[in-house]
């Protein structure tokens, strides 16, 4: 750090003149824009993160239901079998009973399969819930295609009512060969009314 300092006061740089002030304003403005940009980036992370998960099937996100036309002409791969297991959870705040009709189904990739979940409300008042589904293993999630699903819809079940929730799905023939079983999980969350 051999720095030579001219201790004698040279008149080269005076106090901040108008040009220097303008200089400060410009850099400050650029930095403020950067700050706002990164603030926006924080919010942009939400859709970015969601589409990243849908693309990769991270976190068991399966994407929305597919159109029925997508399965026309699709051939089931009779040589392969995939075991699809179903689980159900009722989150605290709901008094429902919620069970899959079948604990598991062995399907051929490409074959459209129907099953259902049974939900009943044994309590003495109507309750509203919403089902969230996910698939493990995560990398199988995007090969699990739903034609009909009851997830992400608000369902109100009256006191004592029972209902059959239909699920129509197929496992894509493109699913990696080493995936032999998939677990499909449905959880009913209570819907709180915000007033």
């Amino acid at each position, binding site marked *: *750090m*051999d*720095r*030579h*300092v*001219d*201790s004698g*006061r*040279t*008149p*080269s*740089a*005076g*106090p901040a003149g108008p040009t*220097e002030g303008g*200089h*400060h304003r410009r*850099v*400050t403005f650029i*930095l*403020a824009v*950067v*700050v*706002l*940009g*990164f*603030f*926006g*980036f*924080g*919010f942009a*992370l*939400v859709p970015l*993160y969601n589409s990243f*998960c849908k693309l*990769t099937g*991270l*976190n068991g996100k399966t994407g929305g239901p597919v159109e029925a036309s997508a399965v026309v002409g699709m051939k089931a791969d009779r040589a392969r079998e995939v075991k699809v297991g179903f689980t159900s959870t009722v*989150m605290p705040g709901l008094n429902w009973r919620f069970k899959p009709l079948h604990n598991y189904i062995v399907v051929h990739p490409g074959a459209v399969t129907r099953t259902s979940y049974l939900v009943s409300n044994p309590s003495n008042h109507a309750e509203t819930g*919403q089902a*969230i589904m996910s698939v493990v293993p*995560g*990398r199988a999630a995007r090969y699990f295609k739903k034609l009909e699903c009851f997830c*992400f819809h608000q369902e109100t079940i009256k006191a004592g009512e029972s209902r059959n929730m239909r699920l129509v799905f197929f496992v894509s023939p493109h699913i990696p060969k080493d995936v032999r079983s998939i677990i499909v999980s449905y*959880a009913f*969350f*209570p*819907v709180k009314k*915000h007033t």
Partner: protein
Amino acid sequence: MNAAHAHDAHHDEHPSGMTRWLFTTNHKDIGRLYIGFSIIMFLVGGILAMLIRTELLKPQLLFSPELYNQIITVHGLVMVFAAVMPATTGLANYLIPMMIGAPDMALPRLNNWGFWLLPPAAVLLVMPFILMLFGIGNGAIDTGWTMYAPLSVQGGLGVDFAIFAVYLMGASSLLSSINIIVTIFNMRAPGMTMMKMPIFVWSWLITAFLLIAVFPPLVAGVTMLLADRHFGTHFFNAAGGGDPVLWEHLFWFFGHPEVYILLLPTTGIMPHILSTFSRKPVYGYKAQVYSFWAIGVLSVVVWAHHMFTSGMPVAAQLYFMYATMAISIPVAILFFCWFATIWQGSMTFETPMLFALGYIVLFGVGGLTGLILSDAVADQQYHNSYFLVAHFHYALFGGPVMGIIAATYYYLPKITGRMYNETLGKWHFWQTLIGFNLTFIPQFFLGIAGMPRRIPDYALQFAHLNMLSSVGAYILGSAQLLLVYNLIQVMRGVGKKATTQVWEGAQGLEFTLPSPPPYHTFETQPVIQ
């Protein structure tokens, strides 16, 4: 000439009393305010730490688990946001204009705002404890400083207070970061090129860049949290299709660079102190500057190593593991330069040098244990255990806090014009070193044995090591009172008068000014050749 002198003399006057501090735009006053605020909050956070170790002294409950969680959370938030960050910002405000030969910061009024947003933020963090005494609410935020959803979505009043504290602290650090960047870009003395700037200035430039890149996403994150809590949105609420893991990503996108925001300014002050007390020039100036850049860039792409147990796919775990391990390379370069700076120097061991050497040892332990944690496979065992707690205290106390204390002793004679009591300083160092290691070495073993963090009570087999750790904490805590006493004595004007250069080997523009420096310095900028 006479007129000019009269002009200078007029400027040297400053308002006295409260208004001087409330309305000041002088970088030295604001720097002192930051440092004073930081010391007060360091003591507040320290008292909370003593309460934590008292609860853990024996396997029994003194506080309710809820209160314990509030204490650990506020301890973390206070230490990170209200003690360490203001301390480094204060050093920046005081030192950077003097180091680059500028009369003041570029945006003095903004600078005043930057500081005065902080005390209300600190009040917001601590106030829920006081409100609870009056039966309002159920206490402070109790989620841990990471504020993980869904706990933070469900938590009480304290979470809202913490969210607004984050807003204020965010605004404060963004204002001061912008100010520091503008000052460094526009106000260097003639002839001081970027690659001639003192290393501390470089380290703060990278820190300020990091702050303006990562604090806004956290502010966005807590805004989403606030909306989830009160306005019926579902960003983090699985019931509405949201995802609690999203919060972890948002938080750690800020949280990991934050570690380097705390650390970098002290890695910048290290070469100054080491070169002074070994009477040798700084070794590897360019290597250190490039390492700062490398650390800054890498720090924003490794955040998910905090989330190895959140169910990430193997490919992502591998990426974050290797990227994290890569940071050890620029950090190792810094260590190498520090060693090379003191190598074969004629070293003396005044208090700042002792703390700087302690920094190398303790932060070294923090860095090496970080390598263990960054291994995605090993992390499954260490995650959220006391091993982690010990690791980040070695990294954050051993690094930033030791560095700040070293810088405080190093610049105290310059700032006040009085030498502190060297004997007390040495006592402070040795008691801190012994107390710190006694507190946190047992925690490594507790963690490996399986004691999780954030629990107020524990299984009996952990009793002995916990008692040892608590005794160490009392030694460490009481040691800091020596620092406070020393500071008060110096401020009262006790002690030998400091010379202009203060230390025999000290270099740099700040050591060409008298001790204490006049209220206004470098109104005519020096020319660097």
